[in-house]
C-alpha cells in the first residue's frame, strides 16, 4: 500500500470549488466578468484534475490477489470534528471505486456545464452570483460523495439541497421561480428528516456513523445480529430521504417545478448529479439494504412505479424542459428499481449513462431556448436547419436514453431490466435464510449451498410477483421513454416550423462554449456504455473480459450484495434468457421510436385523434395525476389553517395576554412608583426613616 493514511488530494478536490465559490461570492461583483468565468471554470477544472490523480492513485494502490483486484480505499482526515466521550466524528474523506465514478461525473460534467454556462449566462448581470452558487453546489456534492461517515455525507446532502434552492430561485424577482425553489427545499427537508432519523437509529444501535466501521458490523458474522433487527427500519428511513433528494414517489413533485432554474442548473443538479445522490447513498450502504429484503422490495416497487408514472406524465408535456424533467423522474425510478432488485452495479451504470445523456439533453434544450426564447415545443419544429449541432447531439441523446442498440442507455437499461427478471432471490433472502443455515453463513464469504445448487430454493411467490412486476413495468417504461423522447425530438427539430417568422429569423446556432460541451457529452452518451457489455454478448462472441469493466470495478464494493445473485432465477448460465430480455426491451424501444415517427412526423393528425378519444386520461396526465393538488389539500391547506390558528393564538394569547399583559403590569407599577420619586429630599428622608424604623422593628422581633 502506497498511501495508507492521509491522502491529501481528496481534501483538495473538495476545496477547489469552495475557494471558487468564496472568491466569486464575496468579491465577484467587483471583478471583471471574464475573470469570474475563469475562476469558476478553473476551480472545478482543477478539481477534475485532482480527481483523476486520486483515482490513478487508487488504481496504483490496489492489491492484486489472483484474479481479484482489491482497491480498498484512500482516506484523508481533515480534522477532528465532534468528540464527546466514546463518540467521535471526523471531517474525513474516502475514495473508493464507488466514489470514483461520482467524482468524475461531478467534476467532469460539472466542468463541461460550467463551460456551457459561460455562454448561456453571458448576458446575466449577476453572473458572479450564479457561478458562486454553482461552485458551492459542486463543493457540497463532493462532500456528499467523498464523506467517510454519514455525517459528512449529510452536510453535503443538506448543502446540495440549499444550493439547489438558491439556483432554482436564481431569478428570485419572479415569484413563481422563487416559490419553485422553496417547494424543492421544503419537499427535500421532509426526506432529509427521515434520513436523519435513519442515521440516528443506526448510530444508536452501533455507536458509529463511519461507513467502514458500519460495513464491518453489518457484514461480520459475529456482530451482524446487533444490526439485523433495525436494518429494515433504517434502510426504509434512509430510502425516504433518497425519495426526497432523488425525486421518487411520493416526493417527486419538486423536480418538475425545479426547471424554473437556469437550464445548465437543470442539467447539472436536476439531472446529472444531485438527484442521483439517493442512488449513491443506497449503493454506499448496500450491505445494510442487503440484509433487509423487505426494504429492497419497497425500493424496487417505488422505483418501478416512479419510472412508469414519470414516463406517462412525460408523454403529454409540451414544455421542452418539462418532458426532460419527467423523463429524469422516470429514469431515476429505473435506478431505484435496479437498487431494489440488488443490481447496484446496474443502478450506478445507469447513473453514469443517464448523467451523460440527460445532461446532454438538458444542455441541448438550453441551446434551443437560448435560440428561440420559448420552451413550448408546439411553437418549434424544423430547427435542425438552423442549429445542426444542437439537433445532432440532441438526437444522440434521444437515442441513448431510448436504449438504441450500442448507445449508452442500451447497456445500462438492459442490465437493469435483466436484473429485475433474474434477481428474484434478492427479494427473498429471508426465505433463503430461513431454509438454510441462517444469516451468518450466507453473509460470510461462502455462498449458501442452496443457492449454488442452482435454483433449488423455493422462490417466494411475492418475491416472484414483485420481481417480474417491476421488470414488466420497466419494459413498458422503456417503450414510453423512446416514444416521448422522439416525440420531443421530432416536434423540436424536424417537420415544419410552427412559431412566428420573426423568432425564426433570429434563431441561431449557439456559441462554441455551448457547442463544445454538447459535443463532448454526445460522445460520452454514445460510447459511455461500452464499459459494461451484457454478459451474453461477451460470452457468445468470446470477447475479452475487459468489456465487463464496469462490473469488475464495483465487485469489491458490492461483494456482500453480489453474493445473493451469483446464480439468478435462470441458473448459472442464463445467456439465452438474457438475450431474449435484451431483444424484448430493444424491440419495445424501437416500437416506441416508430410510433413517435408516425404520430409526429408522418401523420401529425393522429395525436389529436388519440387525445380526443382518451380525453379524460389525457387530462389526468396533463394534470400530473393531481398529486400537487392532493398535497395542496392534504398538507399545504391544512398547514395554512394550522398556521392561521397558531397566529391567532400567538397574537391574542401570547402577544396580547402574556407579553403585552406583562408590559402593562410593569407600566402600571411604574405609574404608582413614579410618585415616590418626587425629588423632595424631605420625603426621601421620611422613607428612609420609616425604613429604618421598620427594619429595627423586624430586627428586634416586634413585628415578624
Amino acid at each position, binding site marked *: 500500500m502506497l498511501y495508507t493514511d492521509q491522502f491529501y488530494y481528496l481534501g483538495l478536490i473538495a476545496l477547489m470549488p469552495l475557494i471558487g465559490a468564496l472568491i466569486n461570492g464575496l468579491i465577484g461583483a467587483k471583478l471583471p466578468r471574464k475573470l469570474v468565468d475563469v475562476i469558476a471554470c478553473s476551480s472545478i477544472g482543477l478539481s477534475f484534475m485532482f480527481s483523476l490523480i486520486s483515482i490513478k492513485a487508487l488504481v496504483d494502490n490496489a492489491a492484486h490477489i489472483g484474479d481479484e483486484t482489491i482497491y480498498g480505499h484512500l482516506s484523508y482526515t481533515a480534522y477532528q470534528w465532534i468528540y464527546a466521550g466514546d463518540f467521535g466524528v471526523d471531517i474525513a474523506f474516502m475514495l473508493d471505486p464507488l466514489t470514483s465514478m461520482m467524482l468524475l461525473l461531478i467534476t467532469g460534467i460539472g466542468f463541461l456545464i460550467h463551460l456551457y454556462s459561460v455562454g448561456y449566462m453571458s448576458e446575466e448581470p449577476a453572473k458572479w452570483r450564479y457561478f458562486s452558487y454553482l461552485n458551492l453546489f459542486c463543493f457540497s456534492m463532493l462532500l456528499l460523495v467523498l464523506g467517510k461517515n454519514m455525517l459528512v455525507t449529510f452536510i453535503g446532502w443538506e448543502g446540495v439541497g440549499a444550493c439547489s434552492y438558491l439556483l432554482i430561485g436564481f431569478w428570485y424577482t419572479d415569484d413563481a421561480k422563487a416559490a419553485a425553489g422553496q417547494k424543492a427545499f421544503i419537499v427535500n427537508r421532509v426526506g432529509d428528516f427521515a434520513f436523519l432519523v435513519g442515521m440516528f437509529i443506526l448510530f444508536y444501535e452501533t455507536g458509529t456513523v463511519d461507513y467502514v466501521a458500519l460495513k464491518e458490523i453489518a457484514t461480520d458474522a459475529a456482530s451482524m445480529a446487533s444490526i439485523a433487527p433495525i436494518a429494515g427500519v433504517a434502510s426504509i428511513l434512509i430510502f425516504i430521504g433518497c425519495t426526497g433528494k432523488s425525486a421518487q414517489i411520493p416526493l417527486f413533485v419538486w423536480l418538475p417545478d425545479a426547471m424554473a432554474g437556469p437550464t445548465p442548473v437543470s442539467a447539472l443538479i436536476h439531472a446529472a448529479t444531485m438527484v442521483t445522490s439517493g442512488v449513491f447513498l443506497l449503493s454506499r450502504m448496500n450491505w445494510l439494504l442487503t440484509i433487509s429484503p423487505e426494504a429492497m422490495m419497497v425500493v424496487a416497487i417505488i422505483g418501478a412505479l416512479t419510472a412508469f408514472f414519470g414516463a406517462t406524465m412525460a408523454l403529454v408535456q409540451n414544455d421542452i424542459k418539462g418532458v426532460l424533467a419527467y423523463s429524469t423522474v422516470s429514469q431515476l425510478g429505473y435506478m431505484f428499481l435496479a437498487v431494489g432488485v440488488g443490481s447496484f452495479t446496474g443502478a450506478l451504470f445507469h447513473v453514469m449513462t443517464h448523467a451523460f445523456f440527460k445532461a446532454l439533453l438538458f444542455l441541448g434544450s438550453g441551446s434551443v431556448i437560448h435560440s428561440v426564447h420559448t420552451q413550448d415545443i408546439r411553437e418549434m419544429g424544423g430547427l435542425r436547419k438552423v442549429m445542426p449541432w444542437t439537433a445532432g447531439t440532441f438526437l444522440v441523446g434521444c437515442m441513448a436514453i431510448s436504449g438504441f442498440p450500442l448507445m449508452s442507455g442500451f447497456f445500462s437499461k438492459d442490465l437493469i431490466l435483466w436484473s429485475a427478471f433474474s434477481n428474484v432471490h434478492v427479494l427473498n433472502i429471508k426465505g433463503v435464510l430461513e431454509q438454510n443455515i441462517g444469516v451468518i453463513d450466507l453473509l460470510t464469504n461462502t455462498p449458501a449451498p442452496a443457492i449454488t445448487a442452482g435454483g433449488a430454493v423455493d422462490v417466494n411467490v411475492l418475491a416472484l410477483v414483485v420481481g417480474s412486476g417491476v421488470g414488466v413495468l420497466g419494459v413498458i417504461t422503456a417503450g414510453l421513454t423512446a416514444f416521448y423522447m422522439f416525440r420531443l425530438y421530432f416536434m423540436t427539430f424536424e417537420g415544419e416550423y410552427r412559431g412566428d417568422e420573426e423568432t425564426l429569423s433570429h434563431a441561431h446556432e449557439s456559441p462554441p462554449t455551448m457547442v463544445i460541451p454538447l459535443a463532448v457529452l454526445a460522445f460520452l452518451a454514445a460510447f459511455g456504455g461500452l464499459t459494461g457489455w451484457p454478459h451474453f454478448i461477451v460470452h457468445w462472441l468470446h470477447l475479452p473480459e475487459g468489456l465487463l469493466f464496469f462490473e469488475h470495478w464495483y465487485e469489491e464494493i458490492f461483494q456482500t450484495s453480489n453474493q445473493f445473485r451469483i446464480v439468478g432465477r435462470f441458473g448459472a448460465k442464463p445467456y439465452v434468457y438474457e438475450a431474449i430480455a435484451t431483444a424484448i426491451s430493444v424491440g419495445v424501444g424501437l416500437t416506441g421510436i416508430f410510433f413517435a415517427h408516425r404520430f409526429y412526423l408522418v401523420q401529425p393528425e393522429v395525436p389529436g385523434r388519440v387525445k380526443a378519444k382518451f380525453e379524460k386520461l389525457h387530462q389526468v396526465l396533463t394534470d400530473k395525476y393531481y398529486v400537487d393538488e392532493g398535497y395542496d389539500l392534504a398538507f399545504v391547506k391544512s398547514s395554512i389553517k394550522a398556521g392561521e390558528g397558531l397566529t391567532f393564538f400567538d397574537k391574542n394569547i401570547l402577544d396580547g395576554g402574556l407579553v403585552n399583559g406583562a408590559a402593562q403590569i410593569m407600566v402600571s407599577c411604574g405609574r404608582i412608583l413614579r410618585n415616590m420619586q418626587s*425629588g*423632595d429630599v*424631605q420625603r426621601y*428622608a*421620611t422613607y428612609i*426613616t420609616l425604613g429604618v424604623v421598620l427594619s429595627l422593628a423586624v430586627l428586634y422581633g416586634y413585628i415578624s
Partner: protein
Amino acid sequence: MMFEPTLFHYLTLAAMTFCIGVFGVLVRRNAITLFMCIELMLNSVNLTFITFSKYRVDMDGHIFSFFVMAVAAAEAAVGLAIILHVFRHKRSVNVDEANRLKL
C-alpha cells in the same frame, strides 16, 4: 434619697431628643427650623456618647463628641450661609420653594 439618673434615663432622654429632631426634619419646611432640628439630633448623639463614656469610664466618647461639635460648628457656618443666600434670592426660607434644581 436624692434621684440618681442612671444609664437608662440618659439614653431615653437622648432617644427622645433625637426623635424630636428627626420628626422636625421630616415635617417642618422652614430651613432654620430644619437646621435647629439637625442640631438637636447631633446633640442627642453627643449626649449618648458622653453617657457611654461615663458609664464605661474611658475618654473615647468625649473625644467623639468634641469631633461632632467641631463638625457641627463648621456645618452651621456653611449651612447658615446657604440659607442666607437662599433668603436673599427668594425672600423666603421655605425649603419647598427652593426646588429650582429639580428636573
